[in-house]
Structure formats: C-alpha cells, structure tokens
C-alpha cells in the first residue's frame, strides 16, 4: 500500500469515526473559545491602560492649569505649592504599565498572577501592595483559564490519545493484525503513515490557529515563528513515544493505558513532584526583608537628624555637591527631609535584590528540572514568547524601579537646586518622567 493510499484510508476512517471527529471538532472549538478569551483579556488590559493614561493626562492638565492660572495647588489645601519640586512631583503621578503582548491571545501564562499597572510615587517600590494581580476569584485562578497554551500543552496530547489509541490496537483486538502485516509488507510503516496523518492534522490545525491570531492582531509572521516551532516540537514530544507504544502493545486497551500513563507522568506527576520539591526547598517567602525595609528601616530613616540625611543623600547622588544645597554650609531641613525618600528607595532596592536572588535560585532549580520535566520547559518557553512568564514581569518590575529612581533623582536634584517650577520646567519634568529604560 502506498503512503497516499494509507493517508486517504485514514482520512476516511477519521471522517466516519463519530467519536474521533466529534472530539477533534470539540478541541478546535475549545481552541477558538480560548483565543476569544485571550482577545478579551488583551482588550481588557488595553482598555484599562487607556483609562489610566487618560486619567494621567487629566492630572497633568490640572497641574498645567494651576500654572496657567497662577495657582499653587487645590483650593482647599493651601499648604500645597506645586512651584516647589517636592509638591510638583507629588502631583505628577507616573503610571508604569505593562502593555499586553500581541501574542497574548495565544497564552495567558502567569498574567493573572501579576498586576500590569502601577502608580509611581516618590515612595513606591516594585513590590508594593498595589502591584498585586487584578481582583479575581481565587478558586477560578487555581482551575486556570481555558487559554490556548493550556489546550495545546495539556489537552492536545489527550486528543492525540483519543485519535490514535486504536491504531493497530483495533486490528490486534480483532486478531487481523497478521493480515495487515501481509497486505502492507511492513506493519511498522503502515502504523507510521497512519500516525503521520494525525500528526499532519494536528500540526495544520495548531499552525492555522496561531496564524489566524497573527493576522487578526497584525503581527509579523516572523514574530510567531518561534511559537509555531515550539508547538510543533511539543506535538512530536508525544508522537514519538506514542508510535513505539502502538507498535509494541498488544491491544487498544493496553495502548490507551500506556498513553494515558505517559500523559499523567509528563503533565501532572512530574511537574507536581518538582513543584512540591521546590516548595520544600524554598517555602513561600514571607518577604520579611522587604517588610523590614518598608517599615522598620524606613521609620529609622524618618528619625535621623538632618545632617545624617544630608550625608546619606550625598552618598547616593555624588553630583549633589554641585547643587545649591550641596554647596551651602547650612543644611535646609525641609529640602533634606523632602528628598529622604531617595534613601528609603535605596534600602528598598537592597531588600528587593535579596528577594529577586531568592526567586532566581528557585527558578534555577525549576530550570534544572527541565531535562526530565519537559512540559514545564515548554510551558515557560511558551509564556516567554507571549511575554506572560515570571521573567517578563521581572522586567516590568525593573521598569517600575527605573521610573522610581528617575523620579527620585529628578526630585532630589531639583529640590537641592531650589528650583522654582513653572509650566516650562514642568514640561521638562514630564519628558524626563516619561523616559523608559
């Protein structure tokens, strides 16, 4: 029998097998639903970000109007003076947002575990409580979203089992496998060609779905190539052992049992064991280093005398000695205290580095398990490509830290230079505050 004939035979068998056809269509519909969910989440993120930016613009125009009208702040708070850099910074909220990747509809990854917008003030840090995930139902979170990556990584192997568990198994159950061997000459090739049919079917389906998102979101196909390759490679991760199971098993029940066992091992048991081991080695971090920095050490800074604060600030920004206050022999208590948040920021940075290092060690352990835990590897690689993995959010935290540093540097130098802010200076501030890493 020629390969084409086997292909056509398998196609007819597939079309006539209601259970297989139904399961396949069910899977495709689930994929479409998952992509729709992904688009919904992407649109929600975009709309929230748009609202935030609009609000940011309104705040800016409020300050601009104060300058225009010769006012110094809100009418009911006459102690506020936006011509002073300190108050001007306090009334210049800078939001740092994480824009959703255009590939987000193809994988939500860990996006529901983190926040994607953060208001940056002079007291902010990337681990503040307002950077936690969106409000959601925790019980839904543990069941996860039906997202496209989940369907490919966890359900596609099950679909493959349903489609292929009786290849050769049915013939062995009905005891005409010898007849097949005689007819085909080589039953291993016959099995291989039949399996290739289903492989082609799944590869085509998955690639077509990914490409459809590429077109809808106007992404360059090159940007999705890695994702296509990754998903195709993943399909082969299951196809290869399944081929050997089909060849060497004695019945369809035995094939199904072995295939399901492989799925359970790769998708549930190994990742679950690694997760438990990681948790034993690195129990949940209660972040006491950060809590200390944020509270005990911060309050210790509040209690420092102005001379000590002055000295510490000069240590952080070496060029401060070129400013008016830096050159003045008399220390201005208000200026120094208004800029002491830069010292707190430095303490926060040190604590955050410790936390990030602990998390990195944890991640190294996870990465070290990839050679026997391939599903976690594919899962995290997939999330990297859709910018929804831990590292993407770590980068986002770096963006936040950059914005905080930027704001504090501006505040400190401008305050120490005793600058009087007007609308032109304010524009320059905005340019500086909007700069990114």
């Amino acid at each position, binding site marked *: 029998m020629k390969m084409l004939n086997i292909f056509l035979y398998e196609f007819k068998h597939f079309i006539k097998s209601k259970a297989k056809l139904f399961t396949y269509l069910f899977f495709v519909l689930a994929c479409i639903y998952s992509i729709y969910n992904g688009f919904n989440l992407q649109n929600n993120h975009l709309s929230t970000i748009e609202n935030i930016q609009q609000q940011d613009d309104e705040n800016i125009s409020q300050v601009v109007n104060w300058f225009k009208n010769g006012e110094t702040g809100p009418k009911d708070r006459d102690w506020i003076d936006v011509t002073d850099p300190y108050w001007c910074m306090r009334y210049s909220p800078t939001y740092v947002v994480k824009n959703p990747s255009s590939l987000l509809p193809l994988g939500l990854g860990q996006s529901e575990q983190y926040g994607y917008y953060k208001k940056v003030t002079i007291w902010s840090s990337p681990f503040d409580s307002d950077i936690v995930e969106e409000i959601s139902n925790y019980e839904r979170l543990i069941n996860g979203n039906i997202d496209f990556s989940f369907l490919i990584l966890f359900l596609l192997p099950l679909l493959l089992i349903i489609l292929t568990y009786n290849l050769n198994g049915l013939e062995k159950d009905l005891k005409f496998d010898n007849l097949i061997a005689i007819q085909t000459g080589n039953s291993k090739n016959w099995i291989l060609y039949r399996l290739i049919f289903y492989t082609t079917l799944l590869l085509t389906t998955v690639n077509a779905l990914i490409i459809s998102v590429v077109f809808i979101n106007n992404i360059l196909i090159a940007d999705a190539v890695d994702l296509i390759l990754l998903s195709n490679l993943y399909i082969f991760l299951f196809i290869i052992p399944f081929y050997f199971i089909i060849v060497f098993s004695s019945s369809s029940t035995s094939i199904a049992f072995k295939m399901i066992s492989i799925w359970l091992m790769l998708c549930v048991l190994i990742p679950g064991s690694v997760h438990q081991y990681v948790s034993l080695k690195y129990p949940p971090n209660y*972040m006491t280093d950060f809590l200390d920095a944020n509270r005990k050490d911060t309050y210790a800074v509040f209690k420092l005398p102005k001379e000590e604060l002055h000295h510490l600030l000069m240590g952080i920004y070496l060029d401060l000695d070129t400013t008016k206050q830096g050159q003045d022999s008399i220390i201005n208590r208000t200026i120094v205290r208004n800029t002491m948040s830069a010292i707190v920021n430095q303490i926060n940075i040190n604590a955050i580095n410790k936390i990030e290092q602990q998390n990195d060690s944890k991640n190294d352990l996870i990465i070290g398990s990839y050679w026997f835990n391939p599903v976690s590897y594919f899962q995290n690689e997939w999330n990297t490509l859709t910018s929804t993995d831990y590292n993407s959010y770590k980068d986002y935290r770096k963006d936040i830290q950059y914005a905080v540093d930027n704001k504090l540097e501006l505040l400190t130098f401008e305050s120490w230079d005793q600058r009087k802010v007007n609308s032109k200076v304010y524009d320059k501030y905005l340019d500086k505050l909007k700069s990114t890493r």
Partner: protein
Amino acid sequence: MINILVNEWKGFFRNKLFVFLSLFFLISLCVVTFFGIIQNEKQLEEQKIAQEHIRLQWDQMEPSNPHSAAHFGSYAFKSTSILNSIDEGINAVTGNVLRLEGHKQNDVVFSEASQSLLISKFGKLKPALIFQFIIPLFLIFFSFNSYTSERSNGRLKLLLIQGASLRQIVFSKVFSIWVIGIVLLLASIIVQFVFNSTELSSDTFLRLILLLFTYAIYFFIIVTLTVLLSVIFKNSTAALSVTILIWVIWTIFLPSIIGKTAEEISPLPTRIDFKESMASDRSKGIDGHNPRGDRRQALEKATLEKYNVEKLKDLPINFSGILMQEDEEYGNKVWDKHFGSLYDQLKSQKNIYQISGFVNPFISLQNLSMGTSGTDMYHHLDFLSQAEKYRRVFIKSLNDEYAFGGSKTGQRGWKASNEFFRSVKEFQYQNPTFSSFYSKYIIDFLILLFWVSMLVIFLSFSSRKTLDI
C-alpha cells in the same frame, strides 16, 4: 453477593498489573502525604518565624507617638491549616502577607505563585492531586471492561446460571473496585493520623472523616458511571473512550469554563475602579490629616461642647486622637461597603460554581476537598475578616492612647511608652471550626448524593434491561 465480591478481589490479585499499580499508588500516596506534612510544617515554621520577627520589632518600639505607631502598623501572615498538607486549595495564589495599618484596609500580597516560574498547572503533588486526577483514572481503567470482559468470555452466563442476578453481579463489580479506592484513601488518612497525631484536634478529625467520605462518594460515582457505560455500550473500547472524555470534560474543561462563566454572570471590578470608588467615598468623610475639612469642624465643635470648653487647647484630652479615630470609623464604613460588596460577589460566584455540581460532580468534590481542608475561599475570607477585625481594635487602641493616654491637644511630640506598645495584643488567627462553616457545604454533599442516587438508579435499570446477554 459477598462471594462474587471475594471472587472479584481474588481475580484482581491474580492480575500482576493490578497488584503492581495498587502497590505503586499505595506507596506513592503514603510518601506524598508524608512530604505534604513536612512541607506544611516547614511553611508553618516560616510563618511563625516571620510573625515573631515582626512582633519583636513592635515589642522593641521606642516611646513614640501612637498615631505614628498606627502608620508603622503590623502584619498578619496567613497561616495554613494542618490539612493544607492534603489539599492546599487556593493558598498558593492568595498571597501570604497582610499589612495592618491606620487609614487603610489592605489586600493580602506576595502569593507563592508569583515568586517563581510556572511549574505545575495542576498544583503540587499532594494527596488531593492524586485523589482528584490520578486515582479516578486508575479506577476507570479497572472498571471499564469489568462487565464487557465477563460478557465476552462467557463468565457472565455462568454466574447467572449459578443463581446470581445481573444486578448483583454488576453492583459487586462496582463495590469491588470502589473498595480499592477506599483502601488508598485510608492509607493517606492513616499517614495523616500517624505523623500529625500531636496536632490533631476533634475539628481536624471531623474534617478528615468528611474528606474521606467525600472522596469515597466521588470514587463511587466514577466507578458506577464507568460500569454503567460499559453495560450500555457493551463494548470496552467505546466505554473507555466515552469515560475518558467525560473525565477530561469534568476535571479539566468544566471547572475553568464554569469559573469563567460565574465571573461573567457576577463580574468583579477592576482593581483601579475598586480603589477609585473607595477613594471617592473616603474623600467625603473626615480626613485626620487635613485641618480644613467641614466634618472636622463639626467634630471639633461637638468635642468642645462635650467637655464644656471653648478652645481645643483647653481640652483635658488630645483632640488629634479623637479626630484620627473618627477618620478610622468613617474609613471602616467605606471599607465595609466596598469590600463587603466585593466579598458578596465572590460568594455569589461561589454559589453559581457550587450549583454547577449538578452538571459536574468534580466541582462538588473540589469544593468539599478544599472546604474540609480549610483552604477554600470561605476560609480565606475568614482570615481576612479576622485580620480586619484585629486591625480595627489595634488602631483604635493606638488612637485611644493618643487621645486619652495623657497628652493634650497640640502635643505632637507626646510619646506613648514601650510598656503600652507591648501591652497591645498581637494578631492570632483562630482557624475556624468546620461546624461554623458546615452550612456552606451542604449543597455540595447533596449534589454528590444526588449523583450517587441517579447513577445507582440508572445502573439498576440498565442491568435489568441488559438481560439479553
């Protein structure tokens, strides 16, 4: 019937694959349960260290202004229940640390899930993972052809001739396989008893019994359904395909889809909208740090009248403390309104999710497993509620000390003593007893029992209809 059961078990023990898998699961479960207990103890130890660390800072506080101390605040660390070692429920995604401070009701932060790359989509390898995902599959594989193989090899006819009814045979099959699931459950529970014996209270004992009961019912549903499909289809392959498909839909598809649907029926606000609406309501009240507000003027007037003096400086107490507490009281009303409505929405979503157990008994199982382990949303909300109640008492005691502790209005530099700070009690979370929560889970139990009754009826009916063997 007992003879048939005994014969079934004899048959199982002659099957090497069965013996191997049963032993494998038995040993795995014991090991997994043991490591679950170790991991839980380690987590509790970390939580205790963190709590002591924070308390020590509080106890060592130098004489300070009580309101500054309210801003300094404290932290509540989410404690895990003993049965977290069986099913950690939502604990990995909820966050562990809650800041308790003046003027604010915070949200719990620093979830374990946000501290690393993604590892397992189905959670840690704890007994619940094995009970919910793996043992049901194991039971399916041992029951899908239990009827059809007897039918095809002619043994069924032999049994019928010997006087057994088809119903007795079919139910013997169900019970013989179900008992295997029970044995595995018991193994895990015994390990819990052995290694947690010093920690076990009557409440934990009750929870463990209910957990055992819940899984036992679910295993019965799985086995009965598989045998029923095997009786209906009269074909092993078709029965296996359909059962596996049902298993996938129940355990993987429906929980996510129903969860998502519940969120759409009763949508939650975005964090930014939630905060803005709270801030908007909050701004209408008194602001302890704003000396100009109208409400402040009214409070000032009322206080002066109460003490029958004309100026704040003549008050025998410190007005700032009263003002700060008034600010808190108003804030508390705002938090109650907004957080109350948020929690109501979460509860409404949970109700929808629970009702969906009529379509998917796995949901009822999951709810009961988390509920009896003390790791579901109701227990989480209880932690938040206890922490918030503590925060209010904590801040009030600081504000009262500021107002009535000996200072007078305008004495900003006045400091409360270290003894006072040490006298403020620390937050101790009291794990709720199951009896205080049981009413929330009745629906899940009823749904599981509904499934059992329906399946028993269908199986009885089918085994009567299938006499044409």
